[in-house]
């Protein structure tokens, strides 16, 4: 079946201005890095360099931590809670005003479809600031005792899959609870964080309350190990999460970690099949599958497996992959060459281990990094593609006969971030939800996010929650 022909519907990029190079944001100002080094950031949809980004070294990180400490001691901790909240409200409003600009810049730097950055990421970013703004003067009701205290200076390290959304998940609760921040964006997606620095300036946020140091893993490690940091908040791979847990052992630093996942998406035979198929597609192909909570293991009840797969293949043939700036695009570019190599490697392993690979006919653009939506059938529990996080648009399909077997397979992973359940029977949904060892369960829906809804994993998917009342606990020391 051929997809309908669509005329190109390109979002204009004239709304964004990208500088030739970006400095670090320390103590309210953009400052040249002490390292003197810059690295390129590219548009993954074209492979072309967008700009040069400063690489923060130990001296730069030290300056940022000191600025954050001074801002904490002299300004931020002295401000009344409701005044602090008003800064967050201001930031939320400016983000709404400049939403389109952020969405376009995010799509250029990350490769995700404009439809997602415009309709999901950036609206949620503003919502996160608005939500947490309202908490600032209500922390006695956060559930961690009366008069809870902030940690002080928080080091935050965020990934490239939702650059601005992850910034919001980290910065908004940290500021609302009275902490100051040194944030390190991912090295492939620094641009929106640096635009956010401008928002902080426009909001009149006191200097040093938010500092942004750009760079790669080495910059992040320096931040984690800096003695002036009181708390670490990290979103990224489980491997790096374990390194951080090891690095802070024996120190007073605490950490929240949002790590990997290998979510089961369970389709029972009494599910509404067409809706479930939409849920499967949303679960694994949303954001190119660059989602820690992606529904990457489809567990479908054996007696409906053929029907589900047939419908899934038809639906997948209508997915539009291409220019992320096109408003009709469903799947954009893979974020980096390194990530593309990893997806290819694991997919090759899937074939080598005997699973059957299928993709719809799909023309990939020649420049940039692309991977066609892919499913593997005949997958067994021991296959790498059923165990390891691929972080790409690749779905492993397994089957089950009984609900008990579905639970056993779903829980048979060191991860425990999320899971999906599709059934029209309420009692079965609640039974399944109670048995799944995962922090976020989507029943008859998938990949829904909200600032009021706690997010985070069991087991090796991390420590703590982000969002909701529970997310505040991550940034507060218990009161009396």
């Amino acid at each position, binding site marked *: 079946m051929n997809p309908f022909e669509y005329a190109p519907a390109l979002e204009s990029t004239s709304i964004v201005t990208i500088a030739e190079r970006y400095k670090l944001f320390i103590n309210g100002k953009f400052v040249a890095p002490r390292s003197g080094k810059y690295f390129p950031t590219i548009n993954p949809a074209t492979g072309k360099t967008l700009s040069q980004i400063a690489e923060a070294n130990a001296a730069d990180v030290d300056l940022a931590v000191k600025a954050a400490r001074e801002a904490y001691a002299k300004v931020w901790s002295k401000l009344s809670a409701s005044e602090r909240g008003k800064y967050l409200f201001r930031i939320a409003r400016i983000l709404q005003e400049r939403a389109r600009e952020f969405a376009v810049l995010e799509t250029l730097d990350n490769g995700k479809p404009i439809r997602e950055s415009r309709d999901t990421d950036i609206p949620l970013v503003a919502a996160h600031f608005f939500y947490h703004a309202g908490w600032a003067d209500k922390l006695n009701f956060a559930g961690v005792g009366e008069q809870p205290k902030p940690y002080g200076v928080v080091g935050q390290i965020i990934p490239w899959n939702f650059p601005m959304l992850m910034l919001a998940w980290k910065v908004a609760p940290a500021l609302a609870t009275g902490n100051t921040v040194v944030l390190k964006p991912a090295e492939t997606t620094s641009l929106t964080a640096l635009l956010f620095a401008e928002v902080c300036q426009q909001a009149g946020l006191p200097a040093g309350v938010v500092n942004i140091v750009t760079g790669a893993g080495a910059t992040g490690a320096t931040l984690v190990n800096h003695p002036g940091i009181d708390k670490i908040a990290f979103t990224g791979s489980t491997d790096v999460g374990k390194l951080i847990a090891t690095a802070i052992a*024996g120190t007073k630093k605490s950490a929240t970690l949002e790590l990997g996942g290998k979510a089961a998406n369970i389709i029972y035979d009494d599910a509404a099949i067409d809706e479930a198929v939409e849920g499967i597609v949303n679960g694994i192909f949303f954001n190119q599958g660059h989602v820690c909570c992606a529904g990457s293991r489809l567990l479908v009840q054996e007696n409906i497996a053929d029907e589900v797969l047939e419908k899934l293949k038809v639906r997948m043939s209508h997915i539009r992959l291409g220019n992320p700036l096109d408003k009709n695009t469903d799947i954009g570019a893979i974020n980096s060459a390194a990530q593309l190599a990893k997806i290819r490697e694991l997919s090759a392993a899937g074939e080598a281990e005997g699973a059957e690979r299928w993709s719809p006919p799909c023309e990939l653009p020649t420049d940039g990094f692309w991977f066609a939506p892919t499913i593997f059938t005949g997958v067994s529990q021991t296959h790498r593609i059923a165990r390891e996080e691929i972080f790409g648009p690749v779905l492993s399909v397994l089957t089950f006969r009984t609900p008990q077997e579905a639970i056993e397979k779903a829980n048979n992973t060191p991860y425990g971030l999320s899971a999906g359940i599709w059934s029209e029977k309420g009692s079965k949904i609640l039974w399944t939800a109670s048995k799944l060892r995962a922090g976020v369960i989507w029943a008859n829906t998938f990949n829904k996010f909200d600032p*009021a809804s706690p997010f985070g994993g069991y087991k090796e998917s991390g420590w703590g929650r982000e969002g909701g009342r529970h997310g505040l606990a991550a940034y507060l020391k218990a009161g009396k």
Partner: protein
Amino acid sequence: MKMAISPSGRIDVLKTYKLFIGGAFPRSESGRVYSIKDFKGTHLANPSLASRKDLRDAVVAARSAFPGWSSATAYNRGQILYRMAELLEGRSEQLVAELVALEGITARAAGTQVQQSVDLLVWYAGWSDKIATLGGSTNCVSGPYYNFSTPEPIGVVAIFSAAKPALRNLVGAIASVITSGNTAVVVASEKFPLPAITFSEIMATSDLPAGVVNVLTGSSSELAPWAASHMDIDAIDASGLTPKQLKDSQVAGAQNLKRIRVSDELDSPLRILNFMEIKTVWHPIGI
């Protein structure tokens, strides 16, 4: 503690202090014991010096008990904790004697400690069916979804119980961990292990299912690294570990991202929530 020969001249029947694993009281598979002396230095007993294998057996027992205990009704769990309190009250005399001998405190102070331990158990018994109300929430998401968060037990928790007051620390640690549905592997205070075994005898007769609490005696510095690196232990109450042991446990525990907590408050709902995970469920609203 009884004296070896009582004033009446009768030879007392002394207790053999063994481990408590899976509802039974085995000796250490290693055959090792260590001498426990009273505060004056007189030999009291030879409790087991538990080995790595004993720890692993205890984890197997705790893991096997987890599905049943965590899915028991909170009402049922609360009643069992209350039952433990009832039996603890009845065993006061023996525990007072042990605490006097070990901690070198007066009988009056030991009696107070036992009473406080009973009251602590009663307090935690009452939390079993309330902690989800306190720790959970319904969340107003901006869309047609019903969204709620609820705390769930984390799984198997290793407890390194702090030394003095030996009984109260032990009872508070155990009760805060199991009231929510976790199962536990307890390493009793190395210096004051005897009340832990006597308390195990109470647990064994309180309708507490076998394996929900397992108690080892022995060396914390020997057992802590094995517990920290054990991949089927989800969390550690490290309140009784030294700073060095804590750091080493945090390093080893990073292998499976164990939740390692230290708490100095014996009676706090936050102590219960320390060993719970928050689960959030979304469901669409529509017709």
